[in-house]
Every structure is written in structure tokens, then in C-alpha cells.
């Protein structure tokens, strides 16, 4: 609703007197709402972050959608269908939140399809077996929850409100995934191997989901000051590892990391070096499924064009008829 009549105010970041008042509001834990004055760089950062987040939800439907028709039981199929539908909803809440900043959904979708906007690197990995659906719910959604819970207190009101809704829905996603892993881990040796294989393939890419190490992260400082972000990448990654390792051990699975060890003194699980070259390669477009994912989105968008056009034409015709009557 806030996009109408909104003309982004020009401000030379850093020397606008309104900036101090803006920062004071943020420091006081006040929320920023769409038509409030904000520095351009705050607006741009949010548009980029919320847009990427929305794209991730939408592209994230693809790897799991791949298994809906092959789910092993009706119960699993209904749960997976509901989860994938939720992810579509998350994408829509987030596009709407980004639109309050003065960009349209059409523009954002265009950026995604043109390969100009990013989405989470994790969705460029393939889902090879049914166990991958368990691993995604447990690990990918688990990592997403770690990232998203602090975003419920983000300084930008519409983003924070969308995240509260999303977080409420996410916990079912993680539990259904872990339930799949539990069933496989307790199953035949072949099923247990399948679960372990999925964990082996998803573990490292999941650790990469939290983004580059703090020493290299370029957006962190301003985002922390603006309270868009409240924990650092490394901080969230550690929380995820600490939460997840015991869950794997509980069902007799092990992490694919020979350096993993519990540090009694700090109470944290220490883990081995992450292959950041792989992360950068996947982000740059050269992961196992980047081309396939974008091609699928482009095809879906192109195939739906006539439907959107017809629906708009139909609505215009009815409006004209009503006005003539």
C-alpha cells in the first residue's frame, strides 16, 4: 500500500541532518515505517536484502517440488506439499514488504530472471534422494530459522512483521524434515546410509548459508548499526552448529567433518574450515544447479504470461462494462 506516491527522497548519505535523528530512533529501538524518512543507503540495503530473501523462498520451492510426486506416503506428500506452499507464501509476504520501499514486484522478478539478483546459494544443490527432503527441512530450514528469528526484531517494520509470520510457519518445516531423517536413521541399513549420505552432502553448504566470515563480510557493519542485522554471520553459524550436532548424534548420524570437536571450556562445537571457494563459485552462478533453477523460473514466468495478461484484460473489460452501465 505504501508504494503509491512514494518518491524516494534524495539524500547524500552521511551529511543529511535527518540522519542523526534517524539513527537515534533506531538506537531507541523504534521501528521505521514505509513513509518515514530514511537514508537512501538504508532503503537500498533493505530492498536488496528483502528481495534476495523473497527470491530465495521462491527458488527454494524447486528442489523440494522435485520430490512431491515421489513422496513415499500420502502423509509425507501432504506435508511436503504444505511446506512448499508455505515457501511460496513466504516469498509473497517478502515481495510485499520490499514493495513498501518503492520497488515493484515486477521489477524484482525481472532482476531475478535476468540473473541480476541473488538468492541463497543453498538452492543450487540438487535433491538426489528422498533423504534430501529430510535434510533440507532439518538443516536448510533449521539454518533459515537461526537467521530469521533475529530478523523479527529488524528495525524496518514491514520486514519484521513478515518475519514474525514466516517464523511461526517455519518450525513445522524443520520438524517434518527431522522426522523424515529419524525414520530413515531407524530404518534398514540402506535407509540409514541414505540419511547419512544426504547429511554429508548438505552439511557444508548449510554452513555457507550464513554468508562469508565476519572478517570478509562487506555489509555487516552498517546493517548492525541500523539493526537490520543483530548477530554476525559467524555468530549465527556457531549457534546453528551447536544446536544441530547433538540432533545428528541423537539419531546415530555423524557430521562429515573430521575436525569437529566439542570444546569443554567454551561449551561450543568447533568445526573444520569451510570451502569458501565453493561458496563463491556457486554464488557466481557455477553451482551444480544454477542454470537449471533459473531456467525453471524463466519457463514458469513465461508460461504464466498469457494468464496474467488475460486476467488483467478480463478485469479491464468488466470494469469498462460496469462503468458503461
Amino acid at each position: 500500500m505504501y508504494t503509491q506516491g512514494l518518491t524516494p527522497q534524495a539524500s547524500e548519505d552521511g551529511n543529511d541532518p535527518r540522519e542523526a535523528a534517524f539513527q537515534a530512533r533506531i538506537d531507541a529501538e523504534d521501528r521505521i515505517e514505509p513513509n518515514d524518512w530514511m537514508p537512501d543507503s538504508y532503503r537500498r540495503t533493505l530492498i536488496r536484502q528483502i528481495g534476495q530473501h523473497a527470491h530465495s523462498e521462491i527458488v527454494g520451492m524447486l528442489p523440494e517440488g522435485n520430490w512431491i510426486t515421489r513422496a513415499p506416503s500420502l502423509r509425507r506428500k501432504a506435508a511436503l506439499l504444505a511446506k512448499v506452499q508455505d515457501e511460496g507464501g513466504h516469498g509473497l509476504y517478502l515481495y510485499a514488504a520490499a514493495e513498501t520501499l518503492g520497488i515493484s514486484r515486477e521489477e524484482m522478478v525481472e532482476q531475478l530472471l535476468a540473473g541480476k539478483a541473488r538468492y541463497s546459494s543453498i538452492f543450487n544443490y540438487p535433491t538426489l534422494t528422498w533423504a534430501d527432503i529430510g535434510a533440507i527441512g532439518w538443516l536448510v530450514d533449521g539454518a533459515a530459522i537461526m537467521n530469521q528469528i533475529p530478523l523479527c526484531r529488524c528495525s524496518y517494520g514491514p520486514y519484521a512483521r513478515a518475519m514474525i509470520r514466516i517464523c511461526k510457519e517455519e518450525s513445522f518445516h524443520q520438524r517434518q524434515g527431522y522426522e523424515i531423517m529419524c525414520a530413515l536413521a531407524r530404518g534398514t541399513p540402506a535407509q540409514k546410509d541414505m540419511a547419512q549420505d544426504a547429511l554429508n552432502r548438505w552439511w557444508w553448504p548449510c554452513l555457507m548459508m550464513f554468508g562469508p566470515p565476519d572478517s570478509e563480510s562487506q555489509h555487516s557493519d552498517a546493517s548492525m548499526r541500523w539493526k537490520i542485522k543483530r548477530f554476525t554471520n559467524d555468530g549465527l553459524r556457531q549457534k546453528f552448529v551447536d544446536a544441530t550436532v547433538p540432533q545428528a548424534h541423537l539419531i546415530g548420524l555423524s557430521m562429515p567433518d573430521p575436525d569437529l570437536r566439542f570444546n569443554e571450556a567454551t561449551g561450543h562445537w568447533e568445526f573444520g574450515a569451510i570451502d569458501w571457494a565453493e561458496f563463491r563459485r556457486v554464488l557466481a552462478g557455477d553451482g551444480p544447479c544454477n542454470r537449471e533453477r533459473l531456467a525453471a523460473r524463466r519457463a514458469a514466468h513465461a508460461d504464466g504470461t498469457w494468464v496474467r495478461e488475460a486476467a488483467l484484460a478480463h478485469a479491464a473489460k468488466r470494469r469498462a462494462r460496469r462503468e458503461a452501465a
Partner: protein
Amino acid sequence: MTEAPMPLWEVFIRSRAGLAHRHVGSVHAPDAAMALQSARDVYTRRGEGLSLWVVPSAAITASDPAEKDMMFEPTASKIYRHPSFYDVPDDVGHM
């Protein structure tokens, strides 16, 4: 080329009988009937409501947050609008 924008609608849900409709978000749709369908799918997947409203976003007139002082500040000094402004004997009991 950016395609034609799909109209925007604001979504309001009455979560329980006796409560007012509350703004929950927005959807894009070509007309009111499809906006209602879409709002149902996007915002009520877990029994969130008993009633839905969709309103064209363009139909909403909003106050300008930059003028909030002019708009709302005058009430701050009118403390005589509150019951605690008035002195009555303690022994009158609850009033």
C-alpha cells in the same frame, strides 16, 4: 521490459467473532474476486480467520508521518480528556 503491474490490494482478517478486522498484508490481483482468493491462500492457511476483506491499496488515504506532530500533538496537552484529571473524594469508591 517491465510488464504491466498487477493491482495491489490490502488484506484484513477478522480472526475471531467479536474482534475487528486487522490489516495483515497485501496481495496482487487483477480484480476483487481474485484478490479474495489469493488472500485466502496467502494469509489463511492455518485457520487464521473467519472473515476477509480486500481493499484496493490505491483507495486508502493515509496521513503523512512527517506531519504526525501537527496531526496528533495537540491531544497531548488535553489531559482533562482523561478520568484521572478529576478530583473526587476517595470514599466515593470506584467511579
